[in-house]
C-alpha cells in the first residue's frame, strides 16, 4: 500500500533522514519505534506532504502510495483524494470549537455524496465518550479525550490509511491501553495503520510489524514479536 524508497530529507542544511526504506501493506498495523530525534515524526510529516516550515524537503528517494508517487501532491489532496489521514503529535485539535464542530471540519475532506451521518456514528460508536461531550468546547476535554477526538477527526476524513504520531503521549497507562484497543478495533474494520511510538513495549505488542529507526536510519525490522525478543531492541528500548 505504502512504500518508502530510500527517502532522504533535510531541514535547511541538516539532513534528517539518510535514506530510509520500509513498506506498509493493506490491513496491517506497522510501527516505527525509536528515541527522540531519530526521525520518526519527520517521516510522517514527509508522507503527509505538509509544506515548509512544518515539514522537511525531500532530496532523494520516493514515497509511493497505491502505485503512485506522492512527491508532487499537495497536502489537501493527500487527505481528500489519497485518503491518508494524520493524527499529529500533540493532537492539534481546534480548542475553541466544540467536539462536534471539530469533527465537522473533518467532513471537509468527504465527497459531496458521502454519508456524513454514518461517519459520525462510526466515530461515536468507537469513542462513546466523545458523544457525551459533543457540545463541549474541546479545549475543556481531558488529555485522553482530546486524543480520542484527534483520532476521531482523522477517521471522519474517510481515510483508509491513518498515521498516528505518539498516540500515547501524556496519557495515563490505562488510557494508553484503551487507545490501542480502539486502534486494533479500527484495524479489524479494514484500517491500515502506521504508528509512531516511544512506548515501544505497547506498540510492538499491538503491531503486526515494526521498524526501529535511529538517527535517520532503519536499524532493525521484523514482526512485533521478533523485535520484542531481539536483544538489542530489548536493551535500548524495552528497559533490558
Amino acid at each position, binding site marked *: 500500500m505504502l512504500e518508502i524508497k530510500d527517502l532522504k530529507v533535510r531541514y535547511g542544511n541538516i539532513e534528517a533522514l539518510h535514506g530510509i526504506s520500509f513498506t506498509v501493506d493493506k490491513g496491517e498495523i506497522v510501527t516505527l519505534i525509536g528515541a527522540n530525534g531519530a526521525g520518526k515524526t519527520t517521516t510522517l510529516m514527509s508522507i503527509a506532504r505538509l509544506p515548509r516550515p*512544518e515539514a522537511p524537503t525531500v532530496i532523494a528517494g520516493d514515497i509511493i502510495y497505491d502505485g503512485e508517487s506522492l512527491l508532487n501532491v499537495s497536502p*489537501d489532496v*493527500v*487527505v481528500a483524494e489519497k485518503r491518508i489521514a494524520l493524527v*499529529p503529535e500533540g493532537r492539534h*485539535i481546534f480548542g475553541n*470549537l466544540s467536539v462536534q*464542530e471539530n469533527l465537522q471540519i473533518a467532513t471537509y475532506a468527504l465527497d459531496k455524496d458521502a454519508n456524513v451521518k454514518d461517519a459520525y456514528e462510526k466515530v461515536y460508536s468507537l469513542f462513546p465518550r466523545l458523544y457525551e461531550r459533543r457540545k463541549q468546547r474541546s479545549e475543556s476535554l481531558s488529555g485522553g479525550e482530546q486524543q480520542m477526538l484527534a483520532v476521531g477527526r482523522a477517521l471522519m476524513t474517510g481515510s483508509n490509511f491513518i498515521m498516528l504520531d505518539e498516540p500515547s503521549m501524556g496519557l495515563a497507562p490505562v488510557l494508553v491501553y484503551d487507545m490501542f484497543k480502539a486502534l486494533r478495533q479500527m484495524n479489524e474494520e479494514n484500517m491500515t495503520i502506521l504508528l509512531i511510538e516511544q512506548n515501544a513495549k505497547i506498540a510492538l505488542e499491538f503491531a503486526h510489524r515494526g521498524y526501529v529507526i535511529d538517527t535517520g536510519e532503519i536499524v532493525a525490522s521484523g514482526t512485533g514479536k521478533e523485535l520484542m525478543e531481539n536483544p538489542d531492541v530489548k536493551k535500548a528500548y524495552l528497559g533490558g
Partner: protein
Amino acid sequence: MDKIRQNLFIYSVGVLFIIILVLAAAGVIDLYIQTVIMFIGVNIIFASSLSIVNGYMGEFSCGHAGFMAVGAYVSSVLSVTLFTANKLTGAPLLPPSLSVVLFPVVILIGGIVAAIAGLLVAVPSFKTRDDYLAIITIAVNFIIVTLINNMAVVGGSRGFMGMKKVLYAMKDVVPFPYILFWVMTFAILTVFIIRRFVSSVYGKGIIAIKQDEVAAEIMSINTNRMKLVAFMFSSGLAGISGGLFAHVIGYVNPGSFSILKSTEALVMVYMAGMGSLGGSVISAILFTILLELLRPFQILKWVIIPLLLILLMQFRPEGLMGDKELPDFFPKLKKYYKFK
C-alpha cells in the same frame, strides 16, 4: 409557535428596520440622527469585513481603508456618470430614474472591484505570515491613497462629488429615504452572510487556519486558497461599505481613507473581540456613537479613543466578547436565536 419564538431575534431586527424607515420617511428623526444611523450601518459592514481576516482567520490586515477607497471611488464614479450630468461624460449615460433600480448594483460593482484589488494584494502577501502581512497591507493602503491623490480625472486630492445628485434623482421618482434603506439592508445582509459563512463547514476552514495551520492542512483544507477567498470576501465587503459611505456623505476625498480609517476598523474589531461577529456589530454601534459624542473635543478624540483601547487591552485583552457570541453570555437568548 416554536418557530416564531426561535426566529424572534430576526423578526425584531426586521421590525426595528421598518420602524426606523417609517420614522425617517415621516421626518420624525432628523437628518443628523439619520446620518449617525447610516454611519453605524457603514461601520458595521466595515468592522465585520475586517473581522473575517483579523478576527476569524487570525491574520493581520492593517490597510482595509484602501479597499474601502476602491469601492467608494468605483461606485461613486459609476453612479455619477451613469445617472447625473457631470464633467466626465456630460449628459447622464442612463435615464436618471433608473438609479432607483441600479443603485445597489453600482454599490455591488464597487465591492467586486475592491475584491479584485484584494485578490491582487493577497496573492503575493499570503506567501508571508503574521507581521509581514500587516506591513504589506499598510503599504497597499498608502499606494491606493497616493494613486487616487494623483488621478486628476476623479479630482485628485480635492476629492470627488456629485453623489448627492444621484440621491436627488432617486427621490424625484418616489420620495423615500433610499440611502438609509440601502445602508441598513446591506448591513443586515452582511452580518447574515458572514454568520452563515463562518458557521458553514467551508467557513469553519478559516477558523481552523487561525487555530492551527498544520491541523487545517491535515483536514484537507487548502490553506492558501482559503486565505485568498477569505481576503477577497473581506475586501469586497470593505468596498461595499466604502460605496455606501461615499453616497451617505455625498463627497469623497483620498484623505478620508488614510491609515486613520484603517485604524478605526482595527479599534472596532479589537474592541469587539477576535472572532465575534455579534461583538463587531455592538462595537461598531458603540464606536460610532462614541465618535459622535466626542466630536466637540475635535482632535482630542484621537487621544481619548486610543486611551480607551489601552485600558481595554489592560483589563480585558480578549476584547468585549472574545471569540464568543451573545448567546454564550446569555444562554436564555438561544431560545430566540436560531441563526443557521
